[in-house]
């Protein structure tokens, strides 16, 4: 009798175990399917896309959801025109690098952190790095081809990785470099590209450090207030971030002494090493940028724009002149809340390109083709040979190049 009961109980336990295992397996399979679906949606283990014209892969081709990419952009000019689009997918930033083969435009894809190099001469693009660093918000390049990659961790802390992308002969390389402290508020490369400076927020205000790749950074200045943007011309400069109807000041940080250089409402600056300065202010929604050089014979010029939309270049040497040119994107219209609303992304401008001779002050309108899409220019940059102007369109973070000479 006891044996029979024991057998029945044992059988029952075995059946229960088998059933539990079956249920557990089913639950796991469903969970795995969910995870796989989510990963696929995020692009994990996605097959390398094969675009029709190259073997590079493109985030834009991979996604179905639109990200502010203008439909009008499909009608954009081809590379043979004076202006062309390098990347329709959002980029984190770009920089020109001089190589033995000529100038190259390096850029970082925002979705993947992949690094690409474009030859503006031919339009060919090659992948420099295929190391996946998703959601890159900012890529700051120096003249030596080093890049500071800036993103966010899951707690919204800013990460900064200083990388040295080098393409090997056979395949795209893995990035090597160093992480800087979290939550760097502002980062800038020196003009030589050998050093960098960055600011950190502290309980007391702001601490500013100077460093170099593979070297321990050292504290060079501190301030009791926050909101400093860093620039580096022939020295390190600190600019109070611009705001509408609020005075901002530019300081030089030589030898630990803060020396005020300029002050104006919503002051913004683009400075070069050789005394070339574009300083802008905004009063009541009216921007005004002054282009000046340290040359005694130069004439000042003003344009209704902000320094953020300007870049310095030089006339190509083929012209036989060695004069410096400022390139400025001038908005057709801005609101009274500009530039605050522009920095927040809630206002986009429609810009026209102008070139300004730093010596004569003469200004000329560029790219008058009415078929061009609307550009809201951000982070413009001119190649060291003065032949190419690159910029991002703030509407969709696409990357564009203007040929300044043939």
């Amino acid at each position, binding site marked *: 009798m006891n044996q029979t009961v024991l057998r029945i109980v044992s059988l029952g336990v075995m059946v229960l175990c088998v059933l539990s295992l079956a249920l557990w397996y089913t639950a796991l399979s469903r969970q795995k399917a969910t995870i796989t679906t989510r990963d696929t*949606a*995020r*692009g994990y283990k996605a097959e390398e896309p094969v675009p029709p014209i190259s073997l590079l892969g493109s*985030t834009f081709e*991979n*996604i*179905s*959801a*639109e*990200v*502010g990419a203008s439909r009008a952009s499909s009608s954009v000019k081809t590379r043979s025109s004076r202006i062309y689009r390098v990347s329709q997918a*959002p980029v984190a930033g770009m920089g020109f690098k001089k190589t033995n083969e000529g100038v190259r435009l390096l850029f970082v894809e*925002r*979705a*993947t952190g992949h690094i690409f190099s474009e030859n503006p001469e031919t339009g060919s693009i090659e992948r420099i790095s295929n190391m996946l660093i*998703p*959601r890159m*918000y*900012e890529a700051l390049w120096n003249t030596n081809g080093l890049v500071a990659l*800036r*993103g*966010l961790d*899951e707690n*919204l802390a*800013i990460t900064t990785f200083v990388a040295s992308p080098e393409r090997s002969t056979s395949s795209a390389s893995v990035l090597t470099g160093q992480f800087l402290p979290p939550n760097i508020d502002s980062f800038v490369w020196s003009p030589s590209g050998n050093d960098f400076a960055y600011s950190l927020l502290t309980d*007391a*205000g702001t601490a500013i450090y100077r460093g170099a790749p593979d070297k321990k950074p050292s504290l060079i200045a501190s*301030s*009791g*207030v*926050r*909101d400093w*943007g860093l620039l580096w011309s022939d020295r390190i400069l600190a600019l*109070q*971030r*611009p*705001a509408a*109807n*609020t005075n*901002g*000041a530019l300081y030089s940080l030589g030898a630990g002494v*803060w020396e*005020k250089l300029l002050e104006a409402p919503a002051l913004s600056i683009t400075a070069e090493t050789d005394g070339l300065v574009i300083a802008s202010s905004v009063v009541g929604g009216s921007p005004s940028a002054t282009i000046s050089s340290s040359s005694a014979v130069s004439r000042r010029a003003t344009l209704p724009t902000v320094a*953020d939309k300007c870049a310095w270049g030089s006339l190509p040497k083929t012209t036989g002149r060695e004069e410096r040119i400022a390139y400025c994107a001038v908005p057709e219209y801005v609101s009274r809340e500009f*530039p*605050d609303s522009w*920095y*927040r*992304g*809630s206002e*986009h401008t429609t810009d026209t390109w102008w070139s300004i001779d730093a010596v004569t002050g003469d200004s000329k309108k560029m790219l008058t083709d009415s078929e061009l899409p609307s550009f809201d220019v951000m982070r413009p940059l001119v190649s060291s040979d003065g032949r190419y102007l690159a910029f991002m369109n*703030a*509407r*969709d*973070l696409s990357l564009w190049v203007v040929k300044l000479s043939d």
Partner: protein
Amino acid sequence: MRFLIIVLLLSASPLYAQTFQAPLEPSFSLSPSIVTPGATVLITLKNVENARTTMVRWFRDGVLVGSGIGMTDMQITASNAGITSVVQAQLESGESAEIRIQPTSVDLLWSADSYVAPFFKGRALAGAGSVLRFEALPHLYRDGAALPVSDLFFVWKVDGATKKNLSGRGRNTIALPDSSFRVDEVSVTVENDDGTIRGTAQMRIPQRDTVLELYQEHPLFGVLFHSPIPDQFVTNSRDIIVFGVPWYAGTAQGTRGIQYEWKLGEKQAQIDEAHPYHMSINASAPVSTQVTLSIRNTATWLEDTRRTWTLFLGERGTLLP
């Protein structure tokens, strides 16, 4: 009796001194009293006998800059900070007076601890519940040499009231903790040990209400901070993650002090406590939904901001009214 007379005489001596005080020597007054670089300064000669009929000759750094009968006022433009100008007035009687004018300036800087999105290139403005930080950078000189901050006294005033607990030697930075009442004006006066060299600065603080914006958090590109979601937003996707940014909300209590409340339609939405600033919306079929974001700030009872967006999720164009 003799003792009483002596006491009376002694007690009367100050009166005697006051009655027979010697004539005052010529001196100056300045307007404004604290001279800033490049400012127009009015120098007035005082204590001059027969001032209306006396010839006065004015010199600046040894150079005659003006003369005239009864000319007791002279207007000059102050030099740059750190450069001393010696102004002398010579009277017909042979008397003279001299004043050294040392322009001073104080840069008064401010910032606000208020919420802005990461990588924002503009200024964090002073919303309610912000900690306001100030720094005074004085440019005070003695004999051409800058006086160090540690040797100077700083007197801070907030909306006209002196803040003794924040003032003192070397105290060139202050932080005003969160306050539900807005700070309008801050001033600082800086002076050396004996008060002979002084500088001052004041400023009004631009105040700003919280601006509530919603951004799409894209699975690939991250938060699309360059393009906020408009009041009516159409997307062909049925799933969307939105990210709320309460621009300029005070962070005196840290970002944790900003409380997010999400509503989908009329229904309170469950939030991720660790990441309350974003909300995931998944629709099984094309749908239009209202998303309301309310912000409360533990740093101030003044903060209660809300905004509603209408999202059309699903097939493009089919849901537009």
